[in-house]
């Protein structure tokens, strides 16, 4: 009888210990879940900050900028060269997931990728992982986009004089949304 009661006690103790153990495991998993959600959020935030601060840096890069005199001015000739293969060859060099430039004035009905007659869209670079996104997509898939207005200029010679002709454009930088990738 005493022996049975002792065994009963040990069983009770075992159940208790197993219960406490599982409680700590679950509490630990809950804590880790919160912790890594924070990490993903932090990584997203960092990527967003980087994309925003990249806008000005990208526009000032000698591969895109229109000389060194004007801020936020892109060289139309360089854009043309970059869409014809150079942009992709830069690969990881771009600290972003995508880089596009639109001419926005005069307003257009449809997006016409360059090079083409009356084109208004330059797809300079898209990370190969996101190449299936449609032209003009914004905020879709796992890319979040930020943009800024720019001048798109080129040097023209007309009637014997040389001048800069500029149009209004928009530079659009895409950044990877890490939280969506993991979910």
């Amino acid at each position, binding site marked *: 009888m*005493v022996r049975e009661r*002792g065994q009963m*006690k*040990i069983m009770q*103790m075992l159940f208790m*210990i197993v219960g*406490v*153990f599982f409680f*700590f495991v679950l509490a*630990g998993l809950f*804590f*880790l879940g919160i*912790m890594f959600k924070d*990490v993903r959020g*932090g*990584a997203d935030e*960092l990527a967003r*900050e*980087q994309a925003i*601060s*990249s806008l*000005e*840096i990208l526009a*000032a*890069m*000698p*591969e895109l900028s229109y*000389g*060194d*005199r004007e*801020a936020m001015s892109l*060289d139309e*000739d*360089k854009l*043309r*060269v*970059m869409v*014809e293969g*150079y942009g992709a060859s*830069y690969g*990881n*060099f*771009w*600290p972003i997931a995508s880089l596009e430039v639109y001419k926005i004035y005069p307003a257009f009905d449809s997006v016409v990728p360059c090079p083409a007659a009356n084109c208004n869209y330059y797809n300079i670079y898209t990370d190969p992982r996101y190449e299936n996104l449609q032209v003009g997509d914004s905020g879709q898939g796992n890319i979040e986009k930020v943009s800024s207005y720019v001048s798109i200029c080129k*040097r*023209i*010679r007309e009637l014997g004089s*040389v001048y800069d002709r500029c149009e209004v454009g928009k530079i659009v930088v895409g950044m990877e949304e890490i939280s969506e990738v993991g979910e």
Partner: protein
Amino acid sequence: MKRGQFSFVWIFAILAGGAILALAIYGAVQAGGTLRHVSDSEAAKNFAILTDPLHAGFAEGSFGKISFRQETRLNNFCFNDGKFGANELSVATRSGVGEEWILPGEPTSVYNKYIFSKGENVGFDYGVFSKPFEFPYEVSDLIFLMDGEYCFLNAPEVVENEVLDLGIDNILFGNCSSEIERVCFGSGEDCDSIVYGSCSGGCDSIYDEGVVSKASGELRYVGNLMWGAIFSDNGVYECNVERLMYRTKSIADVFASKTDLMDARDCGTNLKGDLIVWGGLAGNATSGDLTSLANIAETMDRKNNLEDCKIW
């Protein structure tokens, strides 16, 4: 209840409780280590982003300070893959609990910046400034990182003015304590490094090109690369110069293609041939080739300035 039975229950409870406590402590230490790794990785990424506003842009340069709450080891590893390469930044923070220093967090690769510094930097505050690099067109901004103070001796007025204009308080002139790293221009006593200028003709200063001589070797420079040669380890300097030369070549390729588009609308230039040759020379250049390349760059710049339709 028998006495032996009571003792057994207690002994069992103590053992099991001890095991659970040990597991909990082990788990907490592991989680703490993971958090530290995550925070170090975030710090490296943050550091890379914080250098963004330092891009000189149209200015002659800019200076800023990046501070950490804890003492930090900031590693700058430059890798050159024969293309654009990268600076890999990693951070390890000092901790008062557990191991003082652990391995650094995940490195952040920065492909579009050229960060000149020692391989391992230690401190709370880092002085960071940038200067543009033109060869002959604008290639990139150079970023210089200092983890301590430097004493410049016999510095020419142009260098002193540049430092004072940017407000770089990590660089002192004249009387400095002997603990600070001493950089001498031309000559001096107890110098950690000596800058020898060799520019003659068409220069703002004799130090527009030359050699920085250190105990670890000599580093040849042109223009603002002088700052890189002063503040960097040899490995970081050579690697960044080669990355810069590849970038110079890539921009030359873009410019060469741009000339075709300009020609097509009657706004042509005669620089295409020069750009192709220039790209070929710069693509594989090292710091030893800088001085000879600088002469060609100057000639090209003069040609470009004579054009109606300038390439840059």
